[in-house]
Every structure is written in C-alpha cells, then in structure tokens.
C-alpha cells in the first residue's frame, strides 16, 4: 500500500462501466414536463434567411414550441472570443447561415419523434450566397466574405520573429521548402453531446446537466452570452462521459441554446445529439495549409525555420480558437535545437463547421509539415533521415531547454529515447530488407518522427493572438489552476472530489492511488467523485479535461490536498500523543512515532475526534476534516517579445513505422508501429498504455481514414460512418510501446501529461513511411489522409509517365 503510485493498478471505474452501471448524461433522468429538442439545420453553406414559417409545426399535437434565431437574439450576447475581429457568433443563425448544419430553428415537443417530424413542417426561405471553402482562396481579394462587418475572412493574423532568421537563411548551404495541407477531421466519441437544461423564472437562473468537460473558462463565456451573473448558470457534469477526445468542449453553444430555449418555451428541455448532427455540426480540428522553409547546412543541421500557417477555423471563430494556432507555439521547433524561427500565423473563416479542441490540438497540424520537411531535407541532402534527426535533437545537457519562441522544456533525454526506438524498431536491419525487397518489385517503407508532447496548457498562451499592445489593455492571463477537495467522514473514510471531468481516462483510479499513498489507506477504500458542479465544486477557469493536464496538474492538486489532510491528522495526533509532528508517520491506519513505537493512535480515532469531539483538538484548530487545494504550476503570461511558455510540462515521443504498399491496389499495410515515450514519472503504466493506444489509433485515423469532406460548393459529404471512416479494431496495427522516465522537476510527482502524443505523431510518421516506400517514384506526400486511392493514383501517374517517356 505504501507504494501504489506508479503501479499498474486496475481501474476503479471499470466495474460500473463493464456492468452497464455507468451514469452518463442520458442515464440521469429528466424533471417532470421535460420537452425534447430537435434542431432544424441549414442545408446551405452560405445563405441569407429570408423567412421562417413554423405555423404548421406548431399545429402538430405534442409540439410545445418552436424557437428561431429571431426569438433568441434579444436574450443573448454573441459569444466572446479572444481576437479583435468583431465576429458575432450565436448558437443559432440569426439572419444568415454560414455552414451546412448550422442551427436555424429548434422544436420542443413531448418526445423526440414528434419534434423530428415537426422539423419537416418548418418552411425556411433562403437566398443563396456564394460559398467559400478553400483556405487560400478565402484570403484572396474578391473572395466571398462570411462576416461583412469583419471586412475579410481573416479572424486573426500575427507574425513572430525569434532569433535572427534572416541571418540563418543567409548562412544556409541550402533552403528547402514545401507546402503542406492537413485535413479537417473529427473525434467521434461513442457518446455524442447531451444536455438537460432548465430555466427557473423565480431566480432568473439556469441549471444545466451536460457532458461538457471544460475548459471552464467557457463557463464565463456562456454566462456572458446568456446575459446573466455567472452564479446563475449552474452546470453539472455527470459522473461518466462516454469519451470526448476534446470535442465535447464544443458543446458550449448548445448549452446556451438549450438554456435559452428552456426559458422561451417554459419547460425543461433535453437534447441528445445524433451521429449525423455530430459529424456535421459539433466541432472538429482545423484544416491547415503550412508553407515551411528550412535553412540547412550540408550536414543536415537546421539553422532556422520560417512557417506560414493558415488555420481554417470554419464559419465562426469561437473560443478557445485561435488556440489551435498557438497551443504549440512554444514547441513549434519540436524536439530540435533551432534558435531562429519566423511564424506567420493566420486564422481564416470559411463555410465549414466551426472548430475547437480535439486530441492533439494543433500538434498534428504543426508536426506534419515539420517532420515531413525533416525527411525531405534528408532526401535532398542524401543523408539518412535518422542522422538528420539526431544532428538536430536537443541534447540531454541542454535541459531545461529554452525554445526560440519561449518554451521551457522541463526535462528529457531525447537521444536516449531515439536510440532505443531505432534499436527496438531494428531500423538498420529494415533498411537492408527494404533494399532487397525493392529489387523484387516490393514497396517497403520506414518512417520516423520525433515530437515534443506539451501538456498542461498555460492559460496565458491564447492571449498571444493579441499584440503586446492589445494585451496591455486587459488583465494579464497566466497559470493553469486546478483544484481538488479531500474530506474524511466521522468514521474515517475518505471522499475525494476532483474537477478534472474525466471522459474515460481513469482519473478516479489515479486520484485514489495518490491519496492512498499519502494517507496510508488502501486505494480501493477511497471514494472519488468526479462530478463537477459549478455551484458547489472547487474549480477554476482552467479546470477540465484537456491538454493532457491531469497527470501534470490535476494529480498535483490531489497530491497537495492529501498533504493538507495528512498535516492536519498529524497535528491532531501530535497533540493527543504529546509527540513532535516531525516524529510521526502514518502506517497501516495508525499514526505512530518513528522513535517510540508505543506512541500510536488510529487514524480513525483522530478523524473521529475532529467530528465528535472538536473541543479536544489543538487550540484554534477548525473541526472536521475537509481540505481543498488549488494548484498551479509556474506558467507566466506572454512577455513583450511574445515569448510564451505555452505548456507546463513537455514529454517526448519517438515513432518508427514500417509499411508495405501493394503496387496493384495502392493498399497500405502497416507492418509495425514502434513508439517510445518519455512522460516523466508514470503514475499508472496500465492506464498510460491504454491512453497511448487510443491516441495512436486516433492519429491513425487522421493519417489514413478520417476527413470531414466538403465539396467546392461547401456541401458536406461525410455525414455518416459510411463516408466518414474511423479505424476500428481490425485496422489497428502491431504496436510496441516503450517508456523511459525522466522526471519533471516542475510537478510534485515528477509526472507529465500524455495520451495526445501519438495523435500528433501518427499522421506524419505514417506519411513519412508511405513516402519512403514510394521513393523510387519521386513523389512527395503533402496532404492527408493517405488513402489507397491517393497512392494508386500516384503509382498510375508515374506508370503513365514511364510509358509516355
């Protein structure tokens, strides 16, 4: 029991989840007279709403009400967002629709069936406008404009110069550049969005149950949109969330919509999103065009980088965007020692679904061009890719390493991890096998990627979207606070309340491990409550489950809260035993003296006294055992030079993937996927490997299957799982996971976040492997997903060229 942190403890959550006793949003029941919501959505990507006639819908028996943008407009403010462009985003279209799937009207009925049928009776007249979906066309003069009052489709534009980029490019032997396009894709949790919202007239307040998982800074934004004091918006998160991978942060517009609909229709309302709605109109990652230029020496050393990134945030920029552009700002140069960096960052709006968090958030978009250009550099300089990587890796003695853009990499041994990767992946052996296979007409390829995995977002990083002057006008933003509460009841049993709103990551288990080790109580006797209630929980704007922040921040809050409880128990025991506090320790349910074993008192008795006999406590001590700890790591706001340490801890991931391509069909078969991780001290290796595998499969989706496809007219074409392909169990390749552990000096347990790393690395490492296999054809994979179709076209194109030449 004393050493339980770091053990492969099985999850306390699993018993209820595996026996069908999970408590998800759809399990919590509804208040009497609850109406069920169905949402009418725009079939057009860009159109004016001329009129909406819902008189026939109201006549259907069982319909309680219909609400349109015109009805909610007077009750709402547009959502605030951290850019200066005056984009007015409401949860429902007011006078214009800007993407296919945008809510246009809401029906509330006795049940969902009636509500859905009533949607067909609503007549909307649209006047179509020219749509725009292409990222770069959206920037051109004369392109259709989504938001007339913004005047262009640019929601945010910032340029950053770090080091001496021009000098680096002058000193280079060669400048190697390329354009890359990263696709828009989704996260597809099994459980979709769900909300039960109730407006209370007497107090002018809203109570909302929703499977929202933060960041809770969005609570302020929702209250602001509803025009109410924030303590009149009570949001309660159910015990279980059926997966999210970031996308459920995007539920917030629907929370506001359902709230205001409850108010207008006069009954509680419930809405469970269906799969088509989820794919078309929940949220997604950005699609991004990146122009990357590397100034290199002939030995492969990179002197400087220029990156022009154009992120497509969809029809409306909404919080926390443009964070996708900036979440990886500190680690833009990845695992490499590159002191000179220029970034030209754009967020543009087009007639597509608005974006937000998904696992990896910005990492996959950043590392796709970076790690692809590493391979292109090695090809052009005729060097081994592994050599080019090694030449540029940050060395062990450089930690803590200050990146060009202001990041502080807390710890690492990248070379050790990379060497381990090449060894377990049998890199040199595979190269020989590949050469022999090529002689026989077989297409084998090997890809490498090394990435830095940021975790625990600094709340100050989003303000980098503003200029230093613009930032001065507001309150500086910093930190990454998280809270936990631990109490002991009169019988000495422990309850832990966490505000990290897990969606399957096993926070209850890990919290119980930490508390167990500190208080000397078996972990399965500890009750962890993960429901967050904004009216009664301890939480902060940063609370929630995103940016892999539990291992670095959530666990630290639990750690310090447990220490507060322990200190109080020891103080009481010292008083009773007439011993010195520093002489006492907790052992098997007793507090005992280290020097005099006869001095001993049970924890149960100590706790009991705090409840039953408070007058026996030391002078001035409060009764009860109930301690809350708020924790933040050192995370400074951006400075005047735009230097920003955008995350708290930085892990490392090195991937090696081998593939075989069928030249007849273009089919890509992944032979092996090796991944080496350094996430500091691991709190529960069993959960760690599960998280890594899940993140990896999501990355595999981005690499080979998943894309939210729009045609050039802005119509959305992948509205079901028949068209939007997700990897399932049979698509998962052989995966070998290895760890090294270099403790973080910043967190009390030495842990760093993880789980998003392979979502960031898999798209590019697979692209590198495919590109390596196709090397004889002289092609460059510069967009994703790499489908058999794409590969087959490449192969056939070059066959045709051979024939014609």
């Amino acid at each position, binding site marked *: 029991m004393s050493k339980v942190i770091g053990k492969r403890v099985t999850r306390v959550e699993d018993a209820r989840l595996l026996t069908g006793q999970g408590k998800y949003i759809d399990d919590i029941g509804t208040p009497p007279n609850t109406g069920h919501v169905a949402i009418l*959505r*725009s*079939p*057009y990507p860009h159109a004016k709403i001329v009129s909406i006639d819902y008189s026939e819908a109201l006549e259907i028996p069982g319909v309680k009400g219909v609400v349109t943008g015109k009805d909610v407009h007077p009750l709402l403010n547009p959502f605030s967002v951290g850019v200066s462009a005056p984009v007015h985003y409401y949860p429902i279209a007011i006078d214009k629709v800007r993407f*296919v799937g945008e809510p246009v009207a809401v029906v509330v009925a006795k049940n969902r069936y009636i509500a859905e049928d009533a*949607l*067909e009776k609503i007549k909307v007249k649209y006047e179509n406008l020219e749509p725009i979906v292409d990222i770069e066309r959206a920037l051109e003069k004369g392109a259709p404009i989504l938001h007339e009052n913004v005047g262009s489709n640019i929601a945010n534009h910032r340029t950053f110069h770090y080091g001496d980029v021009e000098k680096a490019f002058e000193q280079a032997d060669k400048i190697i550049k390329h354009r890359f396009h990263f696709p828009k894709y989704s996260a597809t949790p099994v459980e979709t969005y769900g909300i039960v919202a109730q407006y209370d007239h007497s107090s002018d307040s809203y109570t909302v149950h929703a499977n929202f998982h933060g960041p809770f800074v969005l609570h302020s934004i929702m209250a602001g949109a509803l025009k109410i004091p924030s303590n009149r918006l009570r949001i309660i998160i159910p015990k279980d969330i059926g997966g999210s991978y970031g996308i459920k942060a995007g539920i917030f517009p629907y929370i506001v919509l359902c709230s205001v609909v409850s108010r207008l229709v006069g009954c509680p309302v419930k809405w469970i999103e269906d799969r*088509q709605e989820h*794919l*078309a109109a929940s949220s997604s990652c950005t699609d991004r065009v990146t122009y990357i230029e590397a100034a290199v020496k002939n030995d492969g050393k990179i002197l400087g980088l220029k990156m022009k990134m154009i992120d497509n945030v969809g029809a409306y920029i909404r919080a926390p965007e443009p964070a996708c552009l900036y979440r990886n700002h500190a680690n833009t140069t990845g695992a490499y020692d590159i002191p000179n960096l220029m970034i030209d960052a754009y967020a543009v709006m087009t007639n597509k679904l608005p974006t937000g968090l998904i696992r990896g958030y910005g990492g996959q978009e950043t590392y796709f061009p970076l790690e692809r250009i590493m391979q292109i550099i090695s090809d052009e300089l005729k060097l081994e890719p592994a050599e080019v990587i090694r030449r540029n890796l940050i060395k062990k003695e450089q930690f803590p390493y200050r990146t060009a853009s202001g990041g502080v990499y807390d710890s690492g041994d990248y070379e050790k991890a990379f060497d381990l990767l090449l060894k377990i992946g049998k890199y040199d052996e595979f190269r020989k096998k590949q050469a022999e296979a090529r002689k026989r007409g077989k297409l084998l390829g090997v890809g490498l990627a090394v990435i830095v995995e940021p975790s625990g977002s600094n709340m100050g990083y989003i303000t980098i979207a503003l200029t230093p002057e613009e930032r001065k006008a507001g309150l500086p933003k910093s930190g990454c606070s998280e809270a936990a509460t631990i109490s002991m009841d009169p019988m000495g049993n422990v309850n832990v309340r966490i505000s990290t709103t897990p969606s399957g990551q096993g926070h209850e288990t890990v919290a119980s491990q930490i508390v167990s080790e500190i208080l000397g109580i078996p972990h399965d006797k500890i009750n962890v409550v993960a429901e967050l209630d904004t009216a009664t929980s301890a939480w902060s704007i940063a609370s929630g489950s995103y940016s892999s922040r539990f291992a670095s921040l959530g666990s630290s809050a639990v750690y310090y809260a447990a220490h507060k409880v322990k200190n109080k128990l020891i103080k009481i025991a010292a008083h009773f035993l007439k011993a010195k506090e520093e002489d006492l320790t907790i052992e098997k349910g007793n507090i005992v003296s280290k020097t005099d074993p006869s001095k001993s008192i049970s924890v149960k008795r100590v706790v009991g006294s705090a409840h039953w006999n408070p007058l026996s406590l030391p002078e001035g001590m409060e009764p009860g055992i109930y301690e809350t700890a708020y924790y933040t790591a050192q995370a400074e706001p951006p400075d005047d030079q735009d230097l920003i340490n955008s995350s708290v801890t930085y892990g490392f991931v090195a991937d090696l993937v081998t593939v075989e391509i069928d030249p007849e069909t273009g089919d890509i078969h992944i032979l092996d996927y090796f991944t080496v991780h350094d996430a500091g001290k691991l709190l529960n290796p069993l959960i760690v490997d599960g998280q890594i595998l899940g993140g990896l499969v999501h990355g595999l989706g981005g690499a080979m299957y998943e894309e939210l496809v729009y*045609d050039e*007219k802005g*119509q*959305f*074409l*992948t*509205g*079901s799982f*028949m*068209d939007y392909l997700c990897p399932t169990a049979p698509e998962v390749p052989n995966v070998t996971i290895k760890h090294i552990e270099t403790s973080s000096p910043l967190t009390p347990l030495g842990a760093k976040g993880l789980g998003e790393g392979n979502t960031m690395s898999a798209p590019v490492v697979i692209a590198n492997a495919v590109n390596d296999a196709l090397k004889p054809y002289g092609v460059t994979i510069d967009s994703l997903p790499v489908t058999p179709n794409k590969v087959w076209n490449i192969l056939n194109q070059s066959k045709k060229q051979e024939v014609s030449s």
Partner: protein
Amino acid sequence: MNGKGSVTLNAGIEKAWEVLLDPEALKNCIMGCKKLEPVNENKYEAEVSIGIAAVKGKYESTIEIADVQKPNHYKLIVKGEGGPGSVEAAGVVDLVPIDDNKTELNYTYEAEVGGKVAMVGQRMLNGVAKLIIQDFFKKFNKELAKSEQSI
C-alpha cells in the same frame, strides 16, 4: 453530378411532345410524385416523396420549363427543398423524329444536392438518378400507349 442518355419513344414527335408537357402524364411518370399543379404557364409546383440511401422524405419543388422550341427542345429547371435537404437540377431535352411512330429523345442533366441528402446520400446519387430516369421513361411509354388508346 451530371449525366446524359437517350431513349426511343413509341410515338411521333408531335405526340411525344404533347405528352411530355402534360402535367397529368408527368405526375404519373415521376417516381414518388404526389402532386403536380401548374402555377402559371410553364411553371409547376410539385410534391415528391423519395428515399435516397437512408434519407427518405418529401420535397416541395418547383418545375420550370424554359427555352421551349416546339416540338424539338426544352429545358427543365427543378428546385426542391424538404426535410432531407435540397435539390437543384437542370435538364435539357431534345427530340429527333425517327419515323411517324418513333422519336428519339436525348437528354443531359446537371444536379446538385444539399443538406442531409448530400451528407449521407452522395455515393448513391448517380445510381438513384439513373433509376429515376429509367423508371420515368418506362412509365412514359405506358402513358404514350394510354394516350394512343384514348384517341
């Protein structure tokens, strides 16, 4: 989506033209057509129920006939909206006489769909379009026969 095709109609060109522009005959020939009423010359309102992939539902449509060059050529402009989404289509029809009792009909069409039907039905559209057109002309030849009998 676009396409083209050709069919032989069992009637002379004048007769074929007459039936092609007869609302009652058209209503009988268009799959799932519940209603087809003229609103003015060369413009009709129609109600069509049809399922494409998993998307079944009713479209309220306007059908406009333009560019009329009797009895050889006309253009059909269809705009439909409904629960399953939106459809905009344009078709061009050319009639060429073969003999007194046979006419060749050549057609081309372009169509765009929006909303749910595009989201989940895209892959099926070409097949569905062909099906609807084949079905139309099968029924149309029956209409022609009916109209011959009634004379």
